[in-house]
């Protein structure tokens, strides 16, 4: 069946026996194509995800300030973020193409949309959960409103906010693979190619494993960052 399907395997006629026979995992293919296929895709993937999370964080932060300042806006912002989150990613990409074209912008708009829900909800929750008496004693000690926010409320909300950032990052890294349906970038692209080439297993496993490792690594690094930012959370009274 594979032999009959013609020249769909990469490097057809030049690859190893493993490649030609579409073996489960051909290490030599990975070595040969690390520099021209996998590494560039990984770097693009990191870029796509990083830009999405950073912009998503900034937008969610502004929305949070609005939602906390103007209570009436909180519910609409929440529902709007819910709505964005429920649109299937493939559909959203296709919806955006007529407007913004086959561009990075299209991909980023979609990716950022998916980060907003979890980031917004966690920021609002984290800030609301700051104990009232702590805020009161800050105000009573003569902190201005801005000082109270920056020096007391924001640090205390950090664990919850960071939990949101970790979820948003991991899910963005995962969703970004779908971007390959729009744009030949990221780890989704080698997957896309491999699927078209009669399901070239090695490439699927390699790109898939990179996406998973990237997500786990990012989560681990963010966890370390969270620990560094919140030293007090690990200290409790030894009764």
């Amino acid at each position, binding site marked *: 069946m594979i032999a009959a399907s013609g020249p769909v395997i990469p490097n057809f006629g030049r690859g190893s026996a493993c490649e030609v026979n579409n073996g489960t995992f051909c290490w030599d293919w990975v070595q040969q194509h690390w520099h021209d296929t996998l590494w560039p895709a990984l770097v693009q993937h990191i870029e796509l995800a990083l830009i999405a999370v950073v912009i998503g964080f900034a937008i969610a932060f502004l929305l949070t300030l609005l939602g906390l300042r103007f209570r009436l806006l909180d519910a609409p912002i929440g529902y709007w973020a819910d709505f964005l989150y429920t649109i299937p990613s493939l559909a959203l990409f296709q919806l955006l193409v007529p407007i913004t074209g086959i561009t990075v912008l299209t991909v980023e708009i979609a990716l950022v949309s998916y980060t907003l829900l979890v980031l917004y909800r966690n920021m609002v929750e984290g800030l609301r959960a700051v*104990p009232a*008496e*702590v805020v*009161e*004693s*800050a*105000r*009573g*000690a*003569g*902190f*201005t409103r801005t*000082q109270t926010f920056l020096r*007391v409320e924001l*640090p*205390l909300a950090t664990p919850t906010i960071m939990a949101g950032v970790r979820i948003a990052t991991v899910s963005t890294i995962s969703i970004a693979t779908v971007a390959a349906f729009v744009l030949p970038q990221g780890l989704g692209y080698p997957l896309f190619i491999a699927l078209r080439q009669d399901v070239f297993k090695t490439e699927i496993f390699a790109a898939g494993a990179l996406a998973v490792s990237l997500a786990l690594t990012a989560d681990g690094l963010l966890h370390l960052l969270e620990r560094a930012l*919140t030293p*007090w959370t690990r*200290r*409790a*009274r*030894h009764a």
Partner: protein
Amino acid sequence: MTERTRDARGSVKRHDARPRIRRIPTPVRDDSRMATQAAELVFDEATKLYEGRGEAAVDRLSLTVPAGEICVLVGPSGGGKTTALKLVNRLIALTSGDIRIDGTSIMEHDLTELRRGIGYVIQQVGLFPHMTVGANIGTVPRLLGWPKQRIALRTEELLELVGLEPDDAKRYPAELSGGQRQRVGLARALAANPPLMLMDEPFGAIDPIVRMRLQDEFMRLQRELRKTVVFVTHDIDEAIKIGDRIAILREGGRLAQYDTPAAILERPADDFVAQFVGEDRALKALALRRLSELDLRPVAEADGAPRIRDDSTLRDALARLVAEKSDYLLVVRADGTPAGAVAREDLLR
């Protein structure tokens, strides 16, 4: 006072705060063990009304707290004690009337400057959980822009003042007991040596034994510091023990009586006050006086009688007489030498 702290005081430099308009006269010199620095506080028809509520929270409250005295606001829930307290540092805005600190209306002060010049202690303590004990204590000095070195010395000194260890500065609030947290809360409020302290049920959430110890230590501190203190409690016994004067507030935020503990116990202004201070107010009044204040009888009259320290209250002495089924007690000084004798009728006079 230890050597360490004396050294610390010696090396503290004079720190001139940036000139600001209308600032509370916070002490410029850091005379660390805090020489008398107190402000007179005047409530002048202070009123707080909440929209949509018929009754006032605080209704035309007028009273004067002389500099260096503790005024306890006491009364049932809904009496507006906490509201009255928060009017002073403008955590709650006055509806009408005025409050003056050393003659200057609180409305004339810049809001943050006003608050930085007033020590504020609350029942839930409200320590900043993400800051170490040291950083918590240094809060107001940091806001005032003190140099780091001076803040560090001040923090160390305050830890000792409130009975904590120097090492505690590095710990986080979550690592402390309830009593320790309240000590840190007190130290934080005292940090910039404010002339006025507001304390909202500071010992309310602490178990009775530790609470009694904190009360005693607070009174010992106050004898040294001589701050003007407004202290809110719902516990009349605490009010009698701590207050130089007691303001009893009733429902609707109206002042029922403002007087010394002894005067309130002996001459309650009305039935409400009489009921609030309790049927046992005569006994409570005995707790206000100590044996050392009495004219004692010759030692010979109490031959073989039970001994009692002269710093005991008349109430404790009476309890002792009842327990020992005796008519006399031998009063002794701290060093054990007899000071005189006291008879049952001396206590009840």
